[in-house]
């Protein structure tokens, strides 16, 4: 049990660690970019939100599986993804990425662009302005996006079972453990504890996210 919970938390934290930085950059670009082709990028980014996770998992397998487009090459470099905890992380990261992009995009859209213009007029370059003005003003939204991505990663099942399988101690996270438990005769009761844990973790994550957003609204400068 401890092993399952530990693995689940590890997978979710790593998935957010990998997915959040590009989500921050993507969210910023989508919030500021006014190009007509924006909707194409936005659609692609949001796709994992609406396609069945099993389909996402299938596509990941096609790319990262042993005989996949990149899988063989990566394995020759010593990086095995399929049927490894790294596969579970990849699945969680891909599925939670759109949620994190969405949250960061909204956070950056709430940053007054005129403050960025003021920073430029004071001698700050674009990267300097991003790091010293945009990022600090959007950080609560970014953190709440990370928490949301974390919660989504905790519950990832469909894509994970496709790319990472259900290997005890390696890729069996809480949702997979619940599934395995229920498959066992008389396992319904045993699954109950894991279900409770799962709900508890998700609820805490959501509460943290909500609390951060409320604080953000309260601290928002009056314009």
């Amino acid at each position, binding site marked *: 049990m401890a092993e399952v919970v530990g693995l689940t938390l590890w997978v979710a934290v790593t998935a957010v660690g990998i997915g959040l930085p590009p989500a921050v950059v993507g969210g910023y670009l989508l919030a500021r970019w006014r190009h007509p082709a924006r909707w194409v990028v936005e659609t692609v980014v949001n796709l994992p939100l609406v396609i069945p996770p099993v389909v996402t998992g299938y596509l990941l397998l096609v790319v990262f599986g042993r005989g996949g487009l990149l899988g063989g090459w990566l394995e020759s470099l010593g990086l095995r993804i399929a049927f490894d905890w790294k596969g579970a992380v990849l699945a969680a990261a891909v599925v939670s990425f759109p949620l994190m992009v969405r949250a960061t995009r909204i956070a950056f859209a709430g940053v007054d662009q*005129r403050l960025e*213009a003021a920073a430029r007029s*004071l*001698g700050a370059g674009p990267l300097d302005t991003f790091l010293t003005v945009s990022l600090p003003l959007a950080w609560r939204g970014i953190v709440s996006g990370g928490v949301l991505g974390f919660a989504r990663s905790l519950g990832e099942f469909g894509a994970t079972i496709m790319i990472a399988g259900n290997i005890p101690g390696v890729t069996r996270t809480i949702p997979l453990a619940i599934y395995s438990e229920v498959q066992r005769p008389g396992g319904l009761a045993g699954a109950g504890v894991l279900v409770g844990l799962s709900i508890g973790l998700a609820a805490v994550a959501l509460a943290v996210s909500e609390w951060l957003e409320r604080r953000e609204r309260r601290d928002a*400068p009056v314009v």
Partner: protein
Amino acid sequence: MHLSCSCRHAYPGGFRLDIELETDAWRCGLYGPSGSGKSSIVRLLAGVWRADAARVAIGDRVVCDTDAGVWVPPERRGFGVVFQDPHLFPHLTVAGNLDYAARRARGGSIRRAEVEDLLRLGDLLDRRPGSLSGGERQRVAIGRALLTSPALLLLDEPLAAVDAGHRVEVLTYLERVALAWRVPMLLVSHDQSDLRRLAQEVFVFRDGRVAGHGGPEILSDPRVQPGEQVTNVLRLERSEDDPGLARLGSAVLQLPPSLHGSGRRVYAAVSSGAIALSAAPATDVSIRNSLPGVVRSVVPRGGAVFVLVDVGQELWVAVTPSAADEMGLHAGQSLCCLVKTHSLGGLG
């Protein structure tokens, strides 16, 4: 300082901007109603907006030239900008906001201690921008822009978000800044009194064009200003013996109680329609103030004739066409301007 700026731009709605301006004034003003193109020029100068065709140079440094493909990004122009809303960074204290500019300053002679002292920012340093009053915020924004030792300070309606009680205060600080560091300033305002106080040369904008430019007296020029009447501003010197009297050249004017005060300089506003002309010094009338002068020009406009009279400074007087005919008004003619004491008002 020599600033030259030309800008042509067609907006999607059909509004066209076609501006040429050249100035050597250290304190230059742009005046016009909102939507006349003033703010576009500030944004062009600041480097946050690109026009269809534009060229901007300060001294011999070109910061934007669409023909030559020159575009210096805002952070390398060295222009300080103070916007209508102060745009202080809300996640930093006042000190943090000032540091932000000071750390990025490229050389320059304006020192932090002097700025804090002159703008009286010392007591505000630990405060957050959200807890400051409008006037205080604008003071911090001016200080922040100054700390970059700007080659040009752009002030885009800096007093619009400041309540009436603090306008004069902020204006006074701007005057001090102008005197202390001789920072070239470009002040954009739709308020005549701000520009009369601060600007040496004023460009009047109308419908995306420069309708005229010259000293602050252009703000009273009916050839440039629309509207039935124009406002003259008399620069008077208060009598040492009687606070109710003031001198203009050799003439002495009686001031209304609202202008009784202590300052040596008195600015009195009077509408072109509130002044009467008399061929000879008037006796037997209630009007107390008679200013002898010479007609400089006669400008018929609409249903009125505007007469420019030099009484030691130039005054615009509006008379009816029939009065102009009967008096035979012409340039070079000597006459008297009669100004009712109670038609004199304060500025702004």
